[in-house]
């Protein structure tokens, strides 16, 4: 399967943000405010990156109208 540049960027950005959320030792245990700040700084960008990236990738992969064409290959 071919992977486009936009897909690669999407994959890398989301992976980096997911790793940031899981960075060992951050936030410290039993610290409430740092947990909330850490979540705001990692999870909000993660969600934003997923949805913005999805929008951009779907623009690259435009859907063809397949209503009137044949049903694909012979059944397996």
């Amino acid at each position, binding site marked *: 399967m071919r992977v486009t540049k936009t897909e690669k960027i999407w994959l890398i950005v*989301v992976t980096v943000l*997911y790793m940031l959320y899981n960075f060992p030792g951050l936030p410290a245990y*039993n610290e*409430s405010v740092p*947990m909330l700040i850490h979540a705001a700084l990692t999870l909000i960008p993660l969600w934003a990156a997923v949805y913005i990236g999805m929008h951009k990738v779907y623009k690259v992969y435009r*859907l063809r109208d397949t209503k009137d*064409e044949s049903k*694909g*290959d012979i059944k397996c």
Partner: protein
Amino acid sequence: MLSSATIWITLAIYMCFLLGVAFYVTQKEKKQKVSGGLLKASVAWPVLVMTYVASLMSTWVFFAGPGAYYRGGMGYWLSELSYIALFPIIAHFTMNKVWMINQQRGGNYVTPADFYFERFKSPALRTILGLIFLAASFPYISSVLVAIAQAADFATGGAIPYQTAVIVVGLIMTVFVCIGGVKSAAMADTVQGLLFIGLLWFIVIACLIVGFGGSLTTAVDTLWTNTPAFFSYPGPDGWVTNASRLGYPLSCAIGWTIMLPHVFVRAGYFGDNLKSQRKLSYIAPLIQAVVWTGTMLIGLIGLALVSNLTKGDTEMIIPFMINNFVIAFNPTLAAFMMVGFFVGATAVGLSTANAFLTVASGIVSSDLLKNTFHINVPAEKESLVNRIIIAVLGIGSLLIAINPPELIFTMIMFSISIVMPLFPILVFGLYWKKATKQAAIASTIVGTILVLLTYFAWDLGGTWYGAIGLLGATVTMVAVSLFTQQDEADSKEFYEICTRANNRFYDVQE
């Protein structure tokens, strides 16, 4: 609190609803002369989204979830948000490709192993995968029966014995799936899904009004003072550690939302077109976030009200709050909420169990009977054979449910973990031409053994779930592929199908 008659009548009404759906769907199929058997479906996006989300909700929303937030705190909810967000990207790189290839092959895939066979052309791999997916099905179906029977037991103060409830609910589930098949299950999911998401939030708001005068701030302040551990890692019970913060969401992102067999076929086979697949990616995480947040709030309110429940009792936090707080506030509201809780728990639980049951019977009839033992069932007898298999599987799950482990959560998470090692095989199969069937088989076996060791030898199941198996399967897949060879003709056809499917469905503009 509720009489046993109330529960039986409620179950009877719900059974009538399910049979009505099954009758409607089968009649509609007859009129439209559509046939796909009991085990295949092609559905529009609203049904696709709701059947997918309902399959994930299962016993989580009313049982395991509130109990898990009670024990794990807000950090646990945050770790869940980290995996829910990943669904669109994982679906784009895997399940949408699976969907396209299935469509290119005439939409004939029934089980997850059908796809793997298309790529690796290995009957042995198909058999092993079939057995693993089947092994994941039994604990999950049983967990649903356990949860519903416990709810009936709790809601009636023991008037309905646990075992009686398991048997009755197990039979309802089996009869419904025998009659209606997968399309009826998907339709029932859609009708009841939104209703029970509404009910979940009704319970949240009602408990908040009863416990804290409707003020979430007061509930949060109370918890902040009495149990501050709720708002930090590793949570009140100390189990949301750095390790489980990675291991758990990873297991859910891959195991729960992609690889469980009933979810795999929904995300990969069921959409009626690629637009529906994309709508699923857009909408499902948002609905999931709404539902999971409601579930977290129930755990939050429950812990703010009472902080000394035992592990097992935490999964009964909703009926506990109704019995101990709402009833004193307004008995009618309490009765209404208890009925709602019971029906909601039954409905969302059965959604998942029905979905599992259909795909499990597909695994037995297609992967095992037809393709492993080469038993050819005449076309006119296929539905009958599938019904018999569904009945046998349903009764098997019922027997497991009669003597369950302490936590429903444990059963669900084991199912998720055991299918995780199959994910790297899917990814390498799609994107790496050098991946061989020998590697796929070795990877499956190594991954499964590692998951079993994680749970039963190393006692790390509660932290790493299937993550160690996933890692072992990934390494094995690469290493064995580099040292083995497979006839190129085996995968050549698969990649030609991929190219044709890409050209058929996409106009790539980069």
